[in-house]
Structures are given as structure tokens and as C-alpha cells.
């Protein structure tokens, strides 16, 4: 995913129970898995919990994964589902559904004084309400369809589109306020 793609041979090795294949699978996927988890839950430590739980679920479910979808897409769905469960457990699912509570904004570090456009965008993303950020991240960053997102979140496709529309508008406003113009 981040350092290479997941091959059929590598997945076959994992299915045989080869620990080295599992390690390689983790090595080439964990950075992107963590990035997605962090963008969904907005907190470093919660993201680490999500990553570990998602990998446990993936290890258990890999034998039944028939490669009808790309591994990356399947893993994204596991991470998304795990993140939602995490938010529910932490009592934050309400804000996910209603989409009206912005997360804590990460404190800018000194290096961000020379922030790139991408840094500005990451910070702006963190300021979106969870419900909006989730939809926007899954659609505009990870390219899931509105239908897939609706299935994962448990809302209608039309509601996903509405939320996406609001999220883009709000993100654009935040970027304008920050002075970043990707």
C-alpha cells in the first residue's frame, strides 16, 4: 500500500500461515492503515488501537478473503468499520451520525510555520466535524463510492452525498480561514 502493492503470492503465503508473509503484509500496509485510522478517529492513540484491532480482524478473516475486491479496499473497509466501533464505544458515534462536533485540532508544531499545502490540508481536515470528515476522507482521499460509504456508516447513499457536499464546502471555508489554498 504505502511501500508497494499486495500481491496474490503474498496473500497466498499468509493463507498458508507463513509468519514472514504476514510480516511483509504488515510492513507494506501499516503506514496507510494508520493514516486512514488517524484521519477517521482524529487521535493518535485511538488510531493505534484501531490499527491493532483491524489487523487482528484481518488476520482472522484472511482465510475467507476471496480477492473479489482488492486487498487494500477490503482492508480499508475493516479499518473503517473498526474505527466506527471505536467511536461508538467512546460515545462519539452521535457526532459521527449528526456531524456537528469538530474534533480537537492538533496543536501546530514549530515546523508547521513553514507548513506545506498538505500540512494545511491535514490540519483543516482535523477541524471538520467527524461525520463530515469520515465521508470526505473515504470518498475524496480513499476513493470509496458513496454507496460503499453508506453501507459502512449505515446511512443512505443520498445522505452520504449531502454530507460530502457540506464537508467539501466546510473544508474550503476552513482552508480560506487558515490562509492555505490547495
Amino acid at each position: 500500500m504505502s511501500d508497494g502493492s499486495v500481491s496474490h503470492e503474498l496473500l497466498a503465503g499468509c493463507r498458508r500461515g507463513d509468519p514472514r508473509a504476514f510480516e511483509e503484509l504488515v510492513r507494506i500496509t501499516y503506514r496507510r492503515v494508520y493514516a486512514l485510522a488517524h484521519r477517521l478517529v482524529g487521535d493518535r492513540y485511538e488510531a493505534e488501537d484501531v490499527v491493532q484491532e483491524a489487523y487482528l480482524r484481518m488476520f482472522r478473516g484472511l482465510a475467507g478473503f476471496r480477492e473479489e475486491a482488492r486487498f487494500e479496499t477490503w482492508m480499508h473497509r475493516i479499518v473503517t468499520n473498526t474505527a466506527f466501533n471505536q467511536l461508538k464505544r467512546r460515545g462519539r458515534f452521535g457526532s459521527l451520525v449528526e456531524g456537528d462536533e469538530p474534533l480537537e485540532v492538533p496543536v501546530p508544531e514549530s515546523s508547521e510555520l513553514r507548513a506545506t499545502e498538505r500540512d494545511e490540508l491535514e490540519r483543516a481536515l482535523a477541524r471538520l466535524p467527524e461525520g463530515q470528515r469520515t465521508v470526505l476522507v473515504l470518498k475524496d482521499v480513499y476513493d470509496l463510492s458513496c454507496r460503499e460509504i453508506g453501507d459502512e456508516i449505515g446511512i443512505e447513499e443520498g445522505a452520504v452525498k449531502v454530507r460530502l457536499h457540506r464537508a467539501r464546502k466546510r473544508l474550503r471555508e476552513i482552508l480560506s480561514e487558515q490562509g492555505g489554498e490547495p
Partner: protein
Amino acid sequence: MTCEEVRALLPAYVDGDLHVVGEIDVHLSTCDACSAELEAYRRMLGELSRMSETGPAPAADLYARVVGLIPAPSLVGRVRLAAFENPALYAAMAGGVAAAVGAVYFLWRRSQRVAELA
């Protein structure tokens, strides 16, 4: 359409997912400010789509923690893995087992015959 109306629709217009695209096109052809706003949306979406390859860096020990969760293979799994990695050895072992079973059967049949003759 007014600038306000057009700008409200730009987040969906960038996907071409609107029934009023033609009206927006007409407005954009004469409004530099809204055209600039549209361009800003496109840059934003372009940057977002490239973010899937990057992201916040994980903690240095996260990889080790995840690797620690890898399930240990069962005994059967280890045998299968050994067979896959070293088929010649596996064939030799399988042959040895078959020979041993054959030998036990032969000895058992022989003892049966001796008993019958006695």
C-alpha cells in the same frame, strides 16, 4: 444564477453530479471570481486524492506491536508450511511414513498367519 447560488453548488459541480450544470457553465463563463473558486475546489480535491499515499507518521513501535499480533501457525499449519517450503523433504518424510505403515501391516499379517498355522 447568482454567484451565491453557484458557489453553493460548486462542491457537487466538481463531480458533474448536478442537473443544473449548464446554467452553472453559463455563469462561470462570465464570472472570474466563481471560476477562481471552482479552480480552488479542484486543487483541493486533487490534493486530497494524493493524500492516500501519505499521512500522519505512525509511532516507531507500531509495526512491532502489529507483528506481535500475527497468529502462531498450528502444528498442522507448520507441517503444511514445511511441506510447501521443502517439498523434497516432505516427500521423503511421507515416503518414510508410508514405508513404516506398510512394514507394520506386513508384520501384523505375518503374525496372523503364524497364529493360523499354529
